[in-house]
């Protein structure tokens, strides 16, 4: 579909009155302080693109690319503008007119092939365990990396040796009576970077009466592709995944990743699939998608009746894609409160972005670190020993933040704590 005909471009551009409310909400603008980083600036530039007042050049992409797609502006815009959708639509248009082989290879090829990703990440993990990453740092090899990569590579400090899918069965039966059949949308971040979350998710679901299915051939939700101007690839991935889940007769499709669940909302799928005949299928699919914490609290209403004597002081970071994209704030906290031994301490500005946003911490490392440092300062001010959040990308970033700020906190998904309580209770019985 022509960029100019995309619904957000066609219907929403005119609604921006440039009131500027978004300036002070945007984590990137707060760091950079120039209008080209303000969300209303992005809306303005998309309009300039649409009207042909600027050429679709890589320089325009650079300006729009400053946005980390946290959706804070969209969630708070008085005029109801989905700034992130406008930005994504423009990035797709700019990518089409300015092909980039690196991006094509990464997002058009590599990130659409789970097996290839698995093997590559296995190799990277092996290299890391052999000390090659440290060796490269020590001999100064990382210093020759372009731009901020020499610093950004430190974010991936620990790559697990095995992906979640390598260890988890395609089907896990429910313990006791089956209450629900659940499809598990196992996202890339959880799969490759935080497989312990996936294990905990399956354990907790199973223990609470759910059959858990992990469909063979599941691919990425498409968010990295949307954010990097590969809307067409995101569309293919979405259609693939919808077809895959259509074959599974499940009551719910659960994901422990806030970014995946945000990408799979009906609203976002409508954006991704506009102009295709898949809109109805997408609506039916999205109606079954639910964030894990919402499922555990609102549907299963779990009660944790085991005790381990463990105590945790926990503070919770709201991932942007839960709080801004879906308005989910209560259930993750409620889940934490229901875990015996957890004392929940609110941090100031819990809903402010951590600056991770998937690939953003690599592509815009410096700004990302400035945003992260503020988040860590707020988190550490609570005196907590555990920093909980519901997004593997945030977990990776926050782990890096702990190292940067020398704060010895454990960064976990709430479900991991819950599973730990279950497991420890089992071993102490």
């Amino acid at each position, binding site marked *: 579909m022509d960029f100019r005909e995309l619904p957000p471009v066609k219907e929403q551009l*005119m609604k921006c009155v*440039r009131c500027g409310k978004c300036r*002070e909400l945007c984590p990137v603008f707060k760091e950079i302080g*120039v209008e080209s980083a303000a969300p209303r600036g992005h809306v303005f530039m998309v309009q300039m693109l649409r009207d042909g007042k*600027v050429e679709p050049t890589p320089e325009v992409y650079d300006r729009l690319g400053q946005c980390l797609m946290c959706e804070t502006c969209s969630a708070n815009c008085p*005029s109801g503008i989905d700034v992130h959708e406008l930005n994504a639509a423009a990035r797709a248009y700019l990518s089409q007119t300015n092909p980039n082989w690196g991006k094509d290879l990464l997002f058009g090829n590599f990130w659409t092939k789970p097996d290839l990703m698995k093997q590559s990440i296995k190799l990277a993990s092996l290299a890391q365990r052999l000390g090659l990453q440290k060796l490269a740092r020590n001999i100064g090899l990382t210093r020759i990396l372009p731009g901020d990569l020499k610093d950004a590579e430190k974010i991936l400090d620990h790559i697990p040796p095995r992906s979640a899918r390598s260890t988890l069965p395609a089907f896990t039966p429910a313990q006791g009576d089956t209450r629900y059949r659940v499809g598990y949308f196992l996202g890339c971040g959880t799969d490759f970077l935080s497989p312990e979350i996936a294990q905990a998710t399956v354990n907790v679901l199973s223990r609470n009466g759910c059959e858990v299915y992990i469909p063979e051939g599941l691919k990425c939700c498409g968010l990295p592709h949307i954010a990097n101007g590969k809307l067409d690839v995101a569309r293919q991935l979405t259609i693939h995944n919808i077809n895959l889940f259509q074959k599974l007769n499940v009551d719910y499709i659960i994901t422990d990743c806030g970014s995946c669940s945000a990408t799979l909302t009906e609203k976002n799928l409508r954006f991704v699939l506009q102009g295709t005949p898949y809109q109805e299928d997408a609506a039916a699919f999205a109606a079954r998608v639910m964030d894990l914490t919402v499922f555990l609290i609102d549907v299963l209403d779990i009660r944790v009746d085991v005790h381990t004597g463990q105590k945790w002081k926990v503070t919770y970071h709201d991932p942007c894609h839960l709080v801004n994209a879906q308005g989910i704030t209560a259930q993750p906290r409620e889940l934490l409160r229901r875990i015996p031994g957890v004392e929940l301490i609110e941090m100031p500005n819990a809903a402010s972005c951590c600056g991770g946003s998937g690939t953003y911490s690599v592509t815009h490392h410096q700004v990302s670190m400035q945003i992260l440092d503020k988040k860590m300062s707020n988190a550490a001010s609570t005196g907590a020993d555990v920093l909980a959040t519901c997004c593997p990308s945030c977990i990776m970033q926050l782990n890096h933040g702990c190292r940067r700020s020398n704060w010895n906190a454990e960064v976990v998904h709430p479900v991991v704590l819950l599973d730990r309580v279950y497991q420890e209770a089992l071993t102490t019985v």
Partner: protein
Amino acid sequence: MNHVDIKKELIKMLGPDKVLTDELDLMYYSYDSSFLTKLQPVTPNAVVLPTSTAEVQAVVRLAYEHGINIIPRGAGTGETGGCVATEGGIVIDLSRWREIVEIDVNNMQVVVRPGVIHADLNDELAKFNLFFPPDPGSSKMCTVGGMVANNASGLRAVKYWTTEPYVLGLEVVTPTGEVIITGGQQARCIKNVSGLNLTKLMVGSEGVLGIVTQIRLRCFPRPKARGIAMAVFDHLDDAPATVLEVYQAGVLPSGIEILDGSAIKAVNDFKPQINLPDAEAILLFEVDGNPPGVEYEGQIIKEVAGRRARQVEWSTDKQRMAELWEGRSITAAAAARVRPDGSRIFAGEDISVPISKVAEVLRAIRALGDKYGIKVVNYGHIGDGNVHCAPVINPEDPHEVELVQKLVDEIHLLAIEMNGSTTGEHGVGAARRGYAVLEHGSAVEYMKKVKNAFDPKGIMNPGKLF
């Protein structure tokens, strides 16, 4: 010096991080929140982002030497094109300069740099039980420098008035590149009638006389309690009459807001769960102060408003106050969404009329909307006669744009005819300068003489005010 040399010189003086010269980056400074710059954005020749008086002074001296226009800018939330280089030049963006220099608790004042955000300032002052009372709707994004430049006010102007009475002194870089301190070089006093009042002259001068680089503000003790009354009227005329009767009963609320039928409908259409009563007008009174006083005044408002209103509710409960106030707080957003294929525009949005004529003016605006076939949502600060009307059009339809410009012109003329002003708190900028002579007559010539005394080369924010 040509443009390239000027840009090089700016970079030399401020460093590359504080100077924008790339054409693409400059385009982002071609607008503010006005309808005028939405229709006609104007790209400046350069943008600088100074964070010291010396940097501002260096830029101004360079501009003065070469006769280049300079345009001060805050957060760009204004609605008049006032911070846009409508005649070209260097935009001086002060919004990065966010330093609260000193909170002088013992003398009830605070010293800030121009880029401090209004809400941030009050968050800091709250730690000392102080506040800076003017309360613009854009509190969370507008800068204090912008408030000073435009003499901004807002919801609580009824009791606390505008920015101007709180400004005790200013540091100003004049258009010739000198630095002056108004309000007394060393002064820390609150009352001061010494000398010509240059502070008062600078406040609201919209950047045509100089660049404010430091602001000394008076603070007030922070009120301990608040209460809200909502009164619902079947007849529009009863609303302003009630406002006057409340005043006559000896009560000065902190704010009095009105939603007319158009705004009530817009709010209910946008968020049906708010469920405002169907009426010709709703008044919201806010009272603040100490708890017994707030309750006492609330009861008076309830009794007085009850004489004309169909229903009156008074509450000091936080939750209920938020619910009562919600209709007002979302009116601007609701207006923006009143037409799925349209947008509210900021033009003709700020007229100020005598309180006694508010009902007449609201009816006249409604008739003008009907005449041009344009939806207009009306709301505003009835306590001081400041009416905000929001025309809603498809801004990409040239015919609608043409019609709305005629509508806006008639609204401005209506305000003058009704013994009012084209602007109560947003300012003149480029958008309303055409009405200067009509509003001020020969006084405009004296305004120009004052400007000329400060700015002999006419480089300070030209094309604004008159």
